[in-house]
């Protein structure tokens, strides 16, 4: 895969000839740009990338990336991508999918993809709404949220994608704000490097049907205090003045201010994304003020696609029948003259 003849790409090489048709102001534009900028940094040839999606606004993604792509059917992107990756491990397989696509109709494929740990990167465009069908509540919509299908307020409690993913044995889970292309690029590159299923939840603003859903985290005025960007090996410090931090208080996380109550930087938890035990990662995924962004968990294990290939190789050397003709002619046969 590393190759001295590797062409040098720019983001333009990954822009297809199709006109982008999201609503003006939609965060999907930002994610598209982030991908187009991140792909050239992945040390792969353009034809090795495959983008698979389901149905939804966000699922139009593959049309706009000039690589191989399939705009599948609603909810099945993870399952289609599974086939692509199992068929050819050399490909870099990406899934672009909405909260409806991956957590409503596609919920089963989502959790099974994660359980199997197939080396696929899934971008979860979580706008807490069904965009394409014009504004019904989704499985991540909040209680009380008024939508076309909940005119008096939603009464179905939401999934928390991070908890669901880690509950399905997620080995890589990250969260990024919809408008932050820098962070998106960095995280996408890490997701690609990571061997295993990488889930990247994008807090994606839908300007039409759920505008401002994440303002409490992403508004310029509050974002420094409302977001904790975690990096492996670094202390969990945040805040406009970088003076806030996270400490463990029994079995709960607590926000403290460095310099107050005798708290020093050394007291602050250091992020260990590679810890196998999920306890702390779940606490981070659950935290809501600040909300945790960046790579929360990244614990490598052998992937299913790798095990699959190994098994085939192993069988090639062990198997009794080396050719199908041998198989057909094996066991109890008899001659008719």
């Amino acid at each position: 895969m590393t190759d001295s003849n590797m062409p040098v790409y720019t983001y333009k090489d990954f822009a297809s000839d199709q006109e982008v048709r999201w609503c003006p102001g939609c965060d999907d534009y930002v994610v598209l740009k982030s991908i187009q900028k991140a792909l050239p940094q992945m040390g792969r040839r353009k034809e090795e990338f495959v983008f698979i999606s389901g149905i939804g606004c966000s699922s139009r993604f593959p049309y706009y990336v000039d690589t191989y792509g399939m705009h599948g059917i609603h909810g099945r992107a993870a399952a289609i991508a599974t086939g692509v990756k199992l068929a050819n491990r050399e490909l870099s397989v990406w899934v672009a999918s909405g909260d409806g696509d991956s957590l409503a109709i596609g919920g089963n494929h989502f959790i099974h993809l994660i359980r199997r740990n197939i080396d696929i990167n899934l971008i979860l465009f979580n706008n807490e709404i069904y965009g394409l069908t014009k504004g019904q509540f989704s499985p991540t919509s909040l209680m009380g949220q008024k939508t076309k299908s909940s005119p008096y307020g939603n009464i179905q409690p939401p999934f928390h994608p991070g908890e669901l993913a880690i509950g399905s044995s997620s080995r890589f889970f990250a969260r990024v704000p919809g408008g932050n292309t820098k962070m998106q690029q960095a995280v996408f590159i890490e997701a690609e490097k990571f061997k295993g299923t990488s889930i990247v939840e994008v807090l994606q603003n839908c300007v039409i049907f759920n505008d401002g859903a994440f303002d409490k985290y992403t508004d310029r005025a509050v974002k420094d205090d409302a977001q904790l960007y975690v990096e492996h090996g670094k202390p969990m410090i945040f805040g406009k003045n970088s003076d806030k931090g996270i400490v463990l208080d029994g079995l709960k996380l607590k926000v403290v201010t460095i310099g107050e109550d005798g708290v020093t930087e050394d007291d602050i938890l250091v992020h260990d994304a590679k810890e196998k035990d999920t306890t702390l990662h779940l606490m981070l995924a659950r935290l809501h003020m600040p909300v945790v962004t960046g790579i929360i968990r990244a614990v490598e294990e052998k992937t299913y696609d790798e095990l699959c290939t190994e098994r085939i190789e192993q069988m090639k050397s062990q198997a009794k029948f080396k050719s199908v003709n041998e198989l057909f002619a094996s066991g109890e046969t008899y001659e008719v003259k």
Partner: protein
Amino acid sequence: MTQENSSLDKQSVKDVVIRFVGDSGDGMQLTGTQFSTTSALLGNDIATFPNYPSEIRAPQGTIYGVSGFQVHIGESAIHTPGDDVDVLVAMNPAALKVNINAVQPGKTIIVDSDSFTSKNIEKAGYKENPLITGELDSFVVIEAPITTLTREAIKDVGLNKKAMDRSKNMFALGMVYWMFTRPLNHTIEFFKKKFSNKPMVIEANIKALKAGYNFAQTLELMPSPLVVLPAKMRPGTYRIINGNTATAWGFLAAAEKSGLDLYLGSYPITPATDILHELVKHLQFGVKAFQAEDEIAGISSTIGASFAGKLAITTTSGPGLALKSEALGLAVMTELPIVVVNVQRGGPSTGLPTKTEQSDLLQALYGRNGESPAIVIAASTPENCFDYAFEASKLALEHMTPVILLTDGYIANGSAPWKIKKVEDMPDITHRQITADDVEGEFEPYSRDKDTLARPWAIPGTPGLEHRIGGLEKADITGNVSMDPRNHEHMTKLRQAKVDKVADSIPDLKVEGAQEGDLLVVGWGGTFGSMFTAVNSMHEEGKSIGLAHFNYINPMPKNVEDVFSKFKKIIVCELNNGQFHTVLNAKFPKFEYMKYNKIQGLPFSVLDLINKFNQILDNK
């Protein structure tokens, strides 16, 4: 071959049907298989059919725990496991009770008389012991204390009673071997090989087998043992194969022939699961066999694997096909080659999951939203499942379209001799994968081959051919999304035309028996055996009757009207309520079709067919 009864007082019969029945734990499948293989090795043609209970392990001696294995052997070509049983071997009262209706008066029943305890008799639902009520008087009943005799024969081996009783079936098999002049050596070898590290098991079974054989000979169970002479089969090397294994192997052959790896995405479901079981054993051929979380993931992953360049298939049965219908539409729209195997079972809904039926035909043809044509073909015998699995792969890969292959529980589980094929002898498969070198100018994913209308197959990883496909309507040639009204009409007709064009490359419909005349019998798929047997025997008696049996259903062979027009009457026979009858009426309304249907989860009875056909011929 053992020599004892190769004397000249043997009587020869043309064919014989034997059914071994007992508890699930009685080893009836093994017994039946041994008898089949031994007979095949003698040169007989054979057809077999197992009949499992749907319970995994029902309590001993109950009606619903009865397991059976039927084998039909003959000196000429055999096409069904047989309607009526010549010899029923029943290991307990429940087995007798469940199977007695398959035996005509005058035929032979062997029972283990030791098993007719009052408890077992009651469990079977008999009020009194049928061996003494006289209700079996019209049969030739052979009561043998099989349990006692087996225990006696192997008492020195050193097994406990429970283990000893596991050899009862071999005692029974020994008896039947004598009756039909079969040698014991194949079965003896089998035990030696299979249980090489369990010498006591080998010894017990061989002793029991021989004891049964000798018991029969000593008591002269029959006036004289019978012989079934070798069939006149085409020379070659044969093996016995069931439909599911043949299906799996057909795909292995197609993968090798096409130079592609095989991908299977499947979710277990009776009676299709054995195809998965077979393929997971042979990963060494590069098979990626993926057990998915459900049928939808099964086919979706198959579409993904096809996009990525594999010979990609998915296997299922009725309810699973229903679940796959939405994704099948995606394969139609993206024009990707996949094969969907549907091993039909009794419906609707969960229906009769372990029984056979042909009632998914209309679902296969029409069970998708929109105008969504797919190729539909059907295998008609256990052994030609191999050929049609191969053919399904070839059609999918050459025409860039999904293919549905229909088999059914009857041929999937039934076995027959298969003249072993070599990959070299199979037809070539030319898939449509391309590289940038094959393309002049801009790559056009929806450009077409002139003859087949197939589009090119540019797989991820190929430099320069990056493109996007999907389920929205595609613009002609470019493959871009298009909402243009005229393009949609054009593409809808084009997808239909592409499937219709397959008719150019499939064989003509053949007629068996009379090539023209009074009655044309029409069938499709897994009923071939019984229908051919019926028509053939009537034709040999000089009746003006022919059989047109379909393997290609969409599209149909080009000569159908030709064939139909040569007969005065046409009758369509199916194991459903008339689905192919509906299709033929719709497609060729100018003919009048009678219909004959059976919806019992069972194959046709040859005799019933003959009666029906004679009735029609007599009324002419």
